[in-house]
């Protein structure tokens, strides 16, 4: 039954893609129907699961056995694992996914081919659901590649723009680096444990030597970095904003980019077994959350600024996931609240762009509240949630991560605290530039509120962004919910919780104040004389340079030297071999004379040889 959750959007995507233009009329509606159906089925499963006692909640469904060789102990199942962790994702993906489908109805209405867009969206939803429902790493990998493909197709959706095409390619290549890690991890698992299912790996890791958990941990971290745009593989995310804005909201904010966090939490047993791998995760998260925030603070492009913010927020989640059992639950909690508030902000940005002829430069916004009431309100709620103002969602999830980080080490705590301040600063800056300040519109721009199909999802999401925190943390309901799967240990910070909350809120307040103070007057053109930090941040903190030096140049060097080796040795032998084979081929071809007499001769000779050989074998 749970397979239907995946099957619905997958089928819809298949129909829309294979029947092409014939489905143009009802295509978007079919896609919305599929996504909604998926959500309802997920909800039904969730309600059933809630009704069961905690230990009976996880359920395994083997859809079919793909291939099994009993003699070799080799078996691959198409099996889905539905437990507290995966159902949380299913609900997030299908709920936010459905809302964004609806939003796209308005947003893509002027596009010449919305049907293709909706097909890709469905494809994405199906692949993402497969990713979170798989019961083994191999099937997860299928979903992992599936979302990568959907992301590639959607970033490059406007492929006539060279920038979009290049960005799509960049995202794909950067993801490849991470995928490489995942595939190596899967192969290692298969060699060491003889299986790739979660349960076998979890039980096998207990007695395994230390190098196994360390290797697996680092490889999985590499995979997570690729998919979740963490340092050092982050640079693709900023370029990915070339895609249509609903895509940025769904894939590059709420769901796909969080797959890395899911991977780490799902592999908790591996990370629990290796302290070095955990520390690597925490460091990666800390670097990413600061880098993302700094980049977000310097960008004038609203979507890129939000992308930096996404990277930063995922940094929080990754950091929390690296803390071990004190952090897993909060990583997922933040992931869910982030899914809501970041989606609403992206949709808000999309609404603003929609109103200003697709302008993304915040320096040409301003003065929007009077023309775009709902967009402003919902965006503002998202803003309050992300900077962590109580009682909005972000406050609860982020506060918990700060507590957990402080009980881990002082430097992790310092990083998340400083990050909270930076978040408050750049978000206030965005708020000021986009909405609060005076209008600096281009001449021919006449902003207007977006249609209902766009407003409605934003309102629903903003309600979530406002309330999700309280709902999920009251009576520790989310901790108890996930504890059977991820394990949970109460963090023990060195300071009383009230003190930590006070410090956090003060840091946030300082960030907000600086943000307001710096952005009272906004130039229409970005100032040139700026500090080196801003200069660096405008260039994505040299993420591309880093990639180029770390991956591209050595890669090119390797390619060059391999090329020489290839030309001389490999090609030499392959060409030699090729020449040899085709030489033989040509010669053997000549044996094909066309004369029936020579064929008959060959049969008779062959028979004689066969008889003689058989006699020899007998003797």
């Amino acid at each position, binding site marked *: 039954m749970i397979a239907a959750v995946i099957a619905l959007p997958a089928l819809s995507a298949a129909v829309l893609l294979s029947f092409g233009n014939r489905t143009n009329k009802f295509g978007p509606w079919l896609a919305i129907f599929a996504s909604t159906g998926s959500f309802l089925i997920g909800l039904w499963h969730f309600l059933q699961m809630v009704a069961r006692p905690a230990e009976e909640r996880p359920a395994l469904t083997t859809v079919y056995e793909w291939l099994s060789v009993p*003699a070799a102990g080799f078996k691959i199942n198409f099996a889905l694992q539905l437990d507290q962790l995966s159902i949380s994702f299913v609900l997030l993906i299908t709920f936010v996914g459905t809302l964004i489908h609806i939003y796209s109805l308005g947003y893509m209405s002027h596009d010449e081919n919305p049907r293709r867009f909706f097909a890709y969206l469905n494809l994405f939803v199906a692949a993402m659901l497969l990713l979170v429902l798989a019961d083994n790493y191999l099937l997860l990998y299928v979903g992992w590649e599936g979302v990568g493909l959907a992301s590639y197709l959607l970033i490059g959706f406007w492929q006539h723009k060279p920038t979009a095409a290049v960005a799509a390619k960049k995202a794909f290549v950067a993801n490849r680096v991470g995928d490489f890690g995942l595939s190596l991890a899967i192969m290692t698992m298969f060699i060491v444990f003889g299986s790739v299912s979660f349960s076998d790996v979890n039980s096998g890791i207990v007695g395994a030597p230390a190098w196994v958990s360390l290797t697996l941990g680092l490889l999985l971290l590499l995979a997570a970095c690729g998919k979740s745009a963490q340092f050092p593989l982050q640079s693709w995310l900023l370029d990915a904003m070339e895609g249509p804005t609903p895509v940025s909201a769904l894939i590059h904010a709420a769901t796909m980019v969080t797959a890395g966090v899911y991977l780490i939490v799902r592999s908790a047993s591996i990370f629990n077994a290796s302290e070095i791998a955990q520390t690597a995760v925490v460091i990666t998260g800390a670097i990413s959350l600061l880098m993302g925030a700094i980049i977000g603070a310097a960008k004038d492009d609203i979507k890129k600024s939000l992308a930096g913010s996404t990277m930063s927020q995922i940094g929080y989640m990754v950091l929390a996931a690296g803390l071990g059992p004190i952090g897993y639950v909060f990583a997922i909690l933040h992931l869910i609240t982030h899914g809501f508030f970041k989606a609403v902000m992206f949709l808000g940005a999309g609404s603003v762009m929609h109103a200003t002829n697709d302008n993304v430069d915040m320096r040409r916004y301003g003065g929007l509240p009077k023309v775009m009431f709902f967009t402003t309100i919902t965006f503002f709620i998202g803003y309050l949630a992300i900077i962590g103002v109580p009682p909005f969602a972000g406050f609860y999830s982020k506060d918990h991560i700060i507590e957990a980080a402080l009980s881990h080490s002082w430097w992790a705590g310092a990083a998340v605290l400083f990050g909270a301040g930076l978040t408050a600063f750049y978000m206030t800056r965005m708020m000021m530039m986009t909405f609060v300040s005076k209008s600096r519109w281009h001449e021919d721009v006449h902003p207007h509120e977006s249609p209902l199909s766009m407003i409605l999802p934003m309102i629903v999401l903003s309600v979530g962004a406002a309330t999700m925190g309280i709902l999920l943390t009251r009576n520790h309901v989310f901790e108890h919910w996930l504890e059977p799967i991820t394990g949970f240990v109460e963090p023990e910070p060195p300071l009383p919780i009230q003190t930590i909350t006070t410090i956090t809120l003060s840091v946030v307040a300082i960030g907000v104040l600086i943000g307001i103070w710096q952005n009272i007057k906004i130039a229409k053109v970005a100032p040139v004389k700026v500090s080196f930090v801003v200069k660096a941040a405008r260039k994505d903190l040299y993420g591309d340079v880093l990639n180029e030096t770390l991956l591209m140049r050595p890669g090119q060097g390797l390619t060059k030297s391999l090329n020489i080796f290839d030309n001389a040795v490999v090609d030499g032998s392959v060409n030699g071999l090729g020449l040899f*084979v085709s030489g033989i*081929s040509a010669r053997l071809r000549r044996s094909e004379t066309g004369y029936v007499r020579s064929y008959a001769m060959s049969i008779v000779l*062959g028979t004689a040889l066969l008889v003689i*050989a058989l006699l020899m074998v007998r003797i």
Partner: protein
Amino acid sequence: MIQTVLNTIPTPSFEYALLSPILVMFLAACLGVLVEAFLPNEKRRFAHLIIVFTAILFAFFAVVLQSGPNGRALVANGTVALDGPGWILQGTILLVAALSALLFAESKIDPLGDAFAARASTLPGGEEEKIATKLGWAQTEIWPLFSFAISGMLLFVTANDLLVLFVALEVMSLPLYLLAGLARRRRLLSQEAALKYFILGALASAILLFGSALTYAYTGSLEFGQISNGISSANNSPGLLTAAIALVAVGMLFKVGAVPFHQWVPDVYTGSPTPVTSFMAGAVKVAAFGGLLRVFYVAFGALVWDWRPLIWVVAGLTMVVGSVIALAQSDFKRMLAYSSVSNGGFILVGFSATSRPAIAAVLIYLIAYAFATVGAFALLTLIREQAGESSTLIRWKGLGKKSPVVAGLMSLFMLSFAGIPLTSGFTAKFGVFTAAISGGATALVLVGVIASAIAAVFYIRVIILMFFSEPIPEGPFVVVPSIFTTIAITASAVVTIILGLFPQVVIDLISSASVFLR
């Protein structure tokens, strides 16, 4: 005197129900002959179509309904063995034959009519030929010939007696020799192919018959079970038996097109009308391997240690030679002919393992290969030029732009031939290789993997030509076929995909039935 002799011959028992698939096809063939004799020209085609498709349908249901555990028996005095593999082979042959029949029946593709000569007796290129074509005559004798061939195949794969096997071989081969020579286009090539096929086939049949005689001389029996008993109990000179096995092997290996008995394959496949080629590469291949399996597993099973090394060598040669020569081919039909040879080698790899999984693996390979090859040939009939089918590969450049559906489906079959996962070809190759490894033939599997790497080159080359090259001016065009060919192609594609996506269902079904009766 005569009476005493007659008394020693037992009255044959004849299980009509169990033998009904064979009988029905035979009856259909005889009916077809009557149609030729008594119906007027213009009504024959329709009557034949009705008779043949009804017969195939009936035979197939007879197979499905009777193939359960209760339907497994030695019948007709032990000369026919209806066991798990026998039923599966019969079912497969009927399905594949049905697809070929659809291609036989197609008459919308070529503006001149179906794929067969208007009058086989007219001089190629002569005035009479033009008149016959203009009058729209058709050589409807193909239909009874076709039915005879199928009934021969159905008997061939269940024959449990060397003499019955021989008769079945002739019943299935003689119509094929004729069918091969009936092409509408390039008739000289077609007639040459028919003659070659006939001469070499006759030679191979003679060798098989000689081997059967020697077997009888050694064991005193022609029935497989008794041959097996005779081998274990006899203490004559083994030289006789060795020669017997070798000669029977040659007779059968000729039919499957194994190296060095393969040279007829490219000439005959290229020359024959494409529907007939699809029939030969699909159904005949299944039948030939079915017969080979039974003879060597049941009759000569006791001597497996003697003949297995030989099969290893033949399998290795067949895979390598088939794949290597295919590389140099510029004609698609010829390339597929060599591909058929090399696929025969892969099947022999599984065959050499002589275990229960090996039987299942061979059967699955046969199913996967037969459907993919029928699909590929069916697609070929759609790619045309003024003079007929366009089988020169280089002219297919950019076909993917002209007709993405045809090129896409062709790519599917090519990928399946190359053994890419999620297609039936992967399931098939995986099966035979695992069977061979557990049978101890690791070195042979290594050769097989290398051969399939070589083979992948020419399969993938087709895809590259179609999708990644600029179309040539005045290249071939793609014809929209009637419902017949459409069904054949769709069915082949569906089987190819299903066997790739859900192989376990089929594997379980076939594994549970892969035991020979003896």
